[in-house]
């Protein structure tokens, strides 16, 4: 500190008790994070070691055929765009259906209310796997032939839409009665109130859970491989795995791809969520 006449009276800058407590707290949480990361690393190494084929202390580990992995990893990775495509198409369909179902659920018109609850009940009461087969295998009997992709997206979209309608219902319910009244009081029609005031707030509420469901969807999209005509990650893994009796390696490769995809998507979702909560809530 540069000295002048008044500086003598200024007390030396010391850390207050609050600062000290805050620092201790920070140190503790830093330490926690470091230890968690270290433990993750150890677990990951253990997992790798389990598949290393090495013998250590008399423990036999699993020996993988790395030649097979090298030859086929590219083929399986080639399914990633398909996996993402199925997921994106399905989540889009699901979002639209979920919003409609939620609006129907809030409707005072009996047929609309019934349609919404009927749809949700029917879809949630039957297995997703069955629904995929239904669209792909059962409908052709009625002369309706859907491509594997179309049947898969339809089934996933319908299924997720039924579950996601709850998200929108909660989102719409999160917009207080006062908001609607304020809109009505300035003369808005019910449609304007919905479009300008209620929906924008409900959608903001719904975006994080939709992100969650999208991540879940990337994994459930594997079920579409059952149709045999959508060449996404799971289909490719089972194909080469079965053909060469290397299911172990093939499924491990697929699992790694799904895992990495969900980690990346979760990371992206975290960024979006942080951005949403920062602004003008």
């Amino acid at each position, binding site marked *: 500190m540069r000295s002048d006449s008044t500086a003598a009276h200024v007390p030396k800058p010391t850390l207050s008790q609050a600062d000290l407590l805050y620092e201790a707290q920070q140190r503790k949480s830093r330490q926690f994070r470091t230890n968690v990361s270290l433990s993750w690393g150890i677990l990951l190494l253990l997992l790798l070691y389990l598949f290393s084929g090495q013998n250590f202390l008399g423990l036999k580990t699993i020996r993988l055929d790395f030649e097979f992995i090298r030859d086929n990893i590219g083929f399986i990775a080639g399914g990633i765009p398909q996996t993402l495509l199925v997921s994106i198409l399905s989540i889009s369909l699901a979002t639209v259906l979920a919003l409609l179902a939620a609006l129907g659920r809030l409707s005072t018109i009996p047929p609309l209310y019934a349609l919404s609850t009927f749809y949700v009940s029917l879809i949630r009461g039957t297995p997703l796997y069955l629904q995929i087969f239904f669209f792909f295998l059962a409908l052709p009997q009625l002369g309706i032939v859907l491509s594997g992709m179309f049947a898969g997206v339809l089934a996933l979209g319908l299924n997720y839409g039924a579950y996601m309608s709850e998200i929108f219902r909660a989102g719409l319910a999160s917009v*207080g009665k*006062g*908001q609607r*009244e*304020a*809109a*009505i*009081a*300035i*003369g*808005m*029609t019910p449609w*304007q109130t919905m479009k*300008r*005031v209620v929906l*924008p*707030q409900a959608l*903001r509420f719904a975006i994080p859970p939709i992100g969650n469901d999208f991540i879940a969807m990337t994994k459930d999209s594997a079920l579409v491989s059952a149709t045999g005509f959508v060449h996404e990650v799971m289909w490719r893994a089972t194909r080469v795995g079965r053909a060469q009796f290397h299911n172990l390696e093939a499924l491990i490769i697929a699992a790694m791809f799904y895992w990495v995809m969900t980690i990346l998507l979760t990371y992206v979702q975290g960024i979006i969520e942080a951005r949403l909560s920062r*602004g*003008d*809530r």
Partner: protein
Amino acid sequence: MAPIVRISNLEKYFGRLHVLKQISVDVASREVVCIIGRSGSGKSTLLRCINFLEEPSFGTIEVDGLAVAAGERGKEHRQLVHDIRLKTGMVFQEFNLFPHMSVLENVIEGPVTVKGMDRSKAIELAEQNLDSVGLLFKKDEYPNRLSGGQKQRVAIARALTMEPKVMLFDEPTSALDPELIGEVLNVMKKVAKDGMTMLVVTHEMGFAREVADRVLVMADGEMIEDAKPDTLFSNPQDPRTKALIDRYRTGNN
């Protein structure tokens, strides 16, 4: 002169609960009318019936020549209700600003979306009104960055920008911290001074006494008194009015 608001034989039931009983009131243009009463007396419901936020059970509401009878249905009825809402501005206890819009967007929303006003013209009008409530400098902020008093002043500007004939205030200061009440009351005084017709449901006896031309007292769904503030506060006729005034007096001192 014909009254700008005429409430005739208004009745309101919530289920079996009879909350408004035979209410008839005329309000003249440029008149400031305060409605006081204990909570549950029906004063807010009365106010909310005027712009049909509550559907009256019986009776008629007339605003600036548009008369709507209770119990009507259909397109014509909806159009009349809509027109009445355009003639009335409402300010709520809980402000009810739109949180996803900036202050300016909140204020121009009605004129642009509902009236189809040209955006630049709406902005001009909005800025005038924000200026008159002293918040033009906050026009680009979002509501969550404002204090309660500021939010309510924006809500007043929002209602004024619809250029209503009548302003309805539903306990506009009841959700505010005591130190923020004054700024809102000052804005309301200014609106009154500019010649706006106002109906104000309030617990602020000081405001009623100073600003109101008439004070209505509600109790148990009935209007028990309708008098000039001087008369009412110095010489209340009904014992319930006297109790109400005494309670606020002791509460404030």
